[in-house]
């Protein structure tokens, strides 16, 4: 097990190195540079700025310099807002994004599991049909449509939730976070609901459920001990992809609800060619994702005893 974790960690570093290299190359191949959009800068200022950010050096040398700093955990300074380092931007934005993302994941997985369960138990009955229609909507209505709709009705017209304000960092007041979290969770929620429903139907038809009933266990015990745990395994496996979805979705949602998270900086940084922010956010999110996948794998091994992590084939 320790060896397996070690191997995974090494793999994680290699992955991150590859991602940062690819991002670096792609980023510099986008036409334009951080200063091209602004009104003409005096030749001298431009030179000085470029020198400050090492942009005057040949690309390979820039790469080596960046990687050296990265190895020490230094992500550089934002080119557009030179008063802030990328590390500062991340540590200010991350708690906000994390709160939003975590709430969305919690909503998607808990509500999704419960809705899927109900749909399966009420299979082919009105409740099931209604839930499945909701799920199809969740899959087909993009969150940049859903978000503004929710703002218009739940926020402006019926005034149930405040809109377009967040409050303060991770500890923002709950009511400000409700709409964006729901908007962000909608698609993963739909995915989890559908997956849970089909997995539950599958498990309900399994022989071991009949065995459990043949033992005399009442329905509730059969459900809690035998059905639920087995039905939830596939849901655990899609937690990884769902996290990706929520991360990328948060860029849009943060913009729509003007939430001061990382996503907002990221979108801005790309249009501004703010090289160091682009690199920093990409690497940060990649690290998060790769780690998340690792955690999901560990979780998977925990919940399904047939999966032996790190065991050789055939063991």
């Amino acid at each position, binding site marked *: 097990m320790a060896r397996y974790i070690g191997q995974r960690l090494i793999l994680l570093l290699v992955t991150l190195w590859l991602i940062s290299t690819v991002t670096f190359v792609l980023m510099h191949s986008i036409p334009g540079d951080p200063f091209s959009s602004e009104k003409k800068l005096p030749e001298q200022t431009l030179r000085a700025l470029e020198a400050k950010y090492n942009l005057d050096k040949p690309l390979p040398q820039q790469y080596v310099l960046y990687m050296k700093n990265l190895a020490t955990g230094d992500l550089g300074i934002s080119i557009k807002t030179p008063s802030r380092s990328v590390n500062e931007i991340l540590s200010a934005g991350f708690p906000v994004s994390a709160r939003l993302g975590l709430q969305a994941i919690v909503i998607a997985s808990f509500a999704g599991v419960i809705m899927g369960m109900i749909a399966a138990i009420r299979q082919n009955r009105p409740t099931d049909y209604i839930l499945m229609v909701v799920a199809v909507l969740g899959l087909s209505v993009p969150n940049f449509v859903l978000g503004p709709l929710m703002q218009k009705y739940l926020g402006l017209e019926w005034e149930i939730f405040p809109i377009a304000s967040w409050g303060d960092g991770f500890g923002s007041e709950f009511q400000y976070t409700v709409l964006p979290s729901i908007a962000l969770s909608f698609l993963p929620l739909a995915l989890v609901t559908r997956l849970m429903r089909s997995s539950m139907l599958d498990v309900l038809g399994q022989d*071991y459920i009949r*065995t459990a009933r*043949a033992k*005399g*266990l009442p329905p509730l015990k059969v459900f809690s*001990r035998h059905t639920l745990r087995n039905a939830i395994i596939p849901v655990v496996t899609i937690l990884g992809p769902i996290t990706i979805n929520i991360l990328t979705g948060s860029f849009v949602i943060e913009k729509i609800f003007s939430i001061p998270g990382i996503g907002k900086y990221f979108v801005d940084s790309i249009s501004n060619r703010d090289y160091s922010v682009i690199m920093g956010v990409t690497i940060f999110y990649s690290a998060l994702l790769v780690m998340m996948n690792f955690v999901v794998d560990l979780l998977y091994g925990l919940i399904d005893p047939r999966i032996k992590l790190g065991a050789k084939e055939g063991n």
Partner: protein
Amino acid sequence: MTNQTILQIEGLHVSFQTYNGEVKAVRGVDLHLDKGETLAIVGESGSGKSVTAQSIVRLIPSPPGVIKSGTIRFGERDLTQVPDQEMYKIRGSEIGMIFQDPMTSLNPTMTVGRQITEGLQWHHDFGKGEALQKAVEMLRLVGIPNPERRIHQYPHQYSGGMRQRAMIAIALACNPKILIADEPTTALDVTIQAQILDLMKELQQKMETAIILITHDLGVVAEMAQRVAVMYGGKVVETGRVDDIFHRSRHPYTWGLMDSMPRLDQKREDDLIPIPGSPPDLLDPPRGCPFADRCPHAMYICHEEMPAWTEVSDSHQVSCWLEHPDAPAADRDEPAARVNIR
């Protein structure tokens, strides 16, 4: 019915409501089971064996399955009428069940030990330690080596034969009066089959359990059972002691079955003669004898009316129009007699 009888099924009708209509899977089955005996139920696929057996403890999938009518007397009670709460107490403690496929019949995410103890703890006021002790004992009883260690393992760490042993341990843990075994060895290798059958016989003697054994294998019947019920098209068509059925059968379907079913002891695969034709459509079952469309001896009346039961002997009953005094003689070994009015 004698005072030895512990289970008496009368006029059992079970249907499944499907999109195409009502599948009448069991259409008036009468059966009884005596203390400590083994009753084999044989018959082609789809004849209603499993549905009959699962109806006893109301394990048919419901919906779509419903017990339409009939009584199942078990001691003082009618199992078709007892409330659910009482049925949960009977299942597993007084009537145990094992199923065909040991690979899929155990929960893959629960240790084998836990799967044995949870029944014990539900039916008795066993503490955790006590239940675990009993589970170890059960595993030892069914011949699993190293039970103290094995108890903490998951089903995927067991071989097929060991899993079926574990299933038997689960089913017998509470010492039930009746064990329903639905093709318990069909999914196993021949050598393992024999071991499991021996084990069942041994435990049956030790625990004085009566067994309802569903099987496709006449060799298994010969080895295990005292009595046999032959099912066809949702009905029992002939019942008797093993030698009544093997040597003195009076029903053309039983004859066909004998020639078409494998027997561990004698026939080889290629000696088997399948019965031509296919079983009746249970959505719209025939009014008369269910076998009439395929029966070489079928007469006009066979298509019109269900034959009544004839007592061939105290132990042997058959439901066939050939028993009628006016029917022409028919003999299973004389194909010439198979020519008949339709």
